[in-house]
């Protein structure tokens, strides 16, 4: 009877005879680990793509300290990297509360799991808000720049060599902008947004302020952007300038090569997307903890699995922080 239902392999009781979990982890946890592994490879693709582009433009890449130098409530104060460092701490700390929640879960301590998970969600939301603020600053830009016909970015500096905004010296002139109304033609036609100052206004302001000069994208041997002497700067401005660039989008930005902004948007955006997914997972798990699902199940393993994902998001940020802001 028995032999007709199950074939005997003769390996029963041996390590490969089946029924032994060699990795001593549940299916869910294993799959979370392998998902994390594959996701790590996706981020590797992004970051090493960033590395490739940076090596291509090794002499022209923007210097991160000069781009990311904002801090909330400190206007006009040069605060390189303080804000990203703060964001890093927020995320590391939310990782700590997460691992504390997992630990409390091991002891079936519902109250502690609830508290720590709430703190983790809070940390995640603060991080996400910070990232939005960072994007806002990046997109709107601080100084403004000029693009040449070969696509190079020229920034303006004062006599100390510090970058200054085009608004600080441009000579505003009377300017009228015609408003296109639906009654005058095709209602859905639209034009380009006008920059705050036109090229001519900037040129006029530059001629008037003789202490100003221009900084090119080229990095010199001291690791700083090359500042042209006044005569050369005037020549650059009159012969090469074609467009005013303020802030950043996917096509051009005031900081340097377009790829710089592209990678900023894609890498921090993809990471931010992961954080939002993480927050959603945390919220779902949080309510399950509240209604006692895991209490009834007798195990808080779901908290552990979501925790793995959350730590992974933190792990990725550690690398993004290094390669985008430090190196």
């Amino acid at each position: 009877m028995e032999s007709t239902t199950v074939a005997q392999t003769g390996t029963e009781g041996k390590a490969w005879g089946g029924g032994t979990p060699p990795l001593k982890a549940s299916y869910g946890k294993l799959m979370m680990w392998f998902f994390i592994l594959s996701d790590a490879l996706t981020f590797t693709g992004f970051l090493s793509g960033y590395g490739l582009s940076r090596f291509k433009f090794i002499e022209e890449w923007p210097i991160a300290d000069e781009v990311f130098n904002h801090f909330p409530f400190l206007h006009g104060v040069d605060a390189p990297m303080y804000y990203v460092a703060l964001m890093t701490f927020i995320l590391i700390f939310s990782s700590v509360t997460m691992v504390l929640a997992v630990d409390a879960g091991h002891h079936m301590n519902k109250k502690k799991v609830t508290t720590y998970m709430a703190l983790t969600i809070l940390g995640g939301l603060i991080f996400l808000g910070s990232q939005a603020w960072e994007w806002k600053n990046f997109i709107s830009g601080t100084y403004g720049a000029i693009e040449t016909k070969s696509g190079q970015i020229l920034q303006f500096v004062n006599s100390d060599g510090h970058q200054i905004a085009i608004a600080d010296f441009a000579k505003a002139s009377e300017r009228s902008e015609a408003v296109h109304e639906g009654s005058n033609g095709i209602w859905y036609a639209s034009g380009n947004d006008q920059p705050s100052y036109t090229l001519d206004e900037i040129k006029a302001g530059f001629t008037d302020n003789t202490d100003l000069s221009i900084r090119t994208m080229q990095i010199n041997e001291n690791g700083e952007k090359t500042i042209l002497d006044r005569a050369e700067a005037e020549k650059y401005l009159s012969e090469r300038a074609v467009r005013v660039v303020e802030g950043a989008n996917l096509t051009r930005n005031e900081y340097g090569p377009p790829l710089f902004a592209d990678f900023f948007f894609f890498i921090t955006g993809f990471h931010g997307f992961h954080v939002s997914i993480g927050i959603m997972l945390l919220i779902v798990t949080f309510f399950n903890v509240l209604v006692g699902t895991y209490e009834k199940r007798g195990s808080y393993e779901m908290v552990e699995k979501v925790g793995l994902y959350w730590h992974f998001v933190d792990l990725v940020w550690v690398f993004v922080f290094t390669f985008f802001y430090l190196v």
Partner: protein
Amino acid sequence: MSAETTTTENKKKSSGAIKRIWQVFVILSVLTIVEVVLGIIKPDFLVNTDIVNMHLLNWIFIILTIFKAYYITWAFMHMEHETSGLRRSVVWTGVFLISYIIAILLIEGYYIYDVFVNGFITWDF
């Protein structure tokens, strides 16, 4: 009796685990602070010393980051408590594939730079 011993043992184990969590938090914070301070000061001798095509400072950043990654994975993600089979299948797969793609892309990036700079009269006109 035996139930009581398990609870005390559990408590001991828990306090040890919690101690480890805070210890790792301190390590991660210190490493981050060192990175930020170095990034702001940018000591001249670290920037001017090059090892394998990169500033010593950048090597320091990368090594500190790998340390941070190690602590997050081992302590926070409990990799240190998993079986060696699970640990190896996740970590080594990642390490090999990631070093491979980085090596390929960076070498290629350097090649493109070479063509970019030496293959044309100028890009800045």
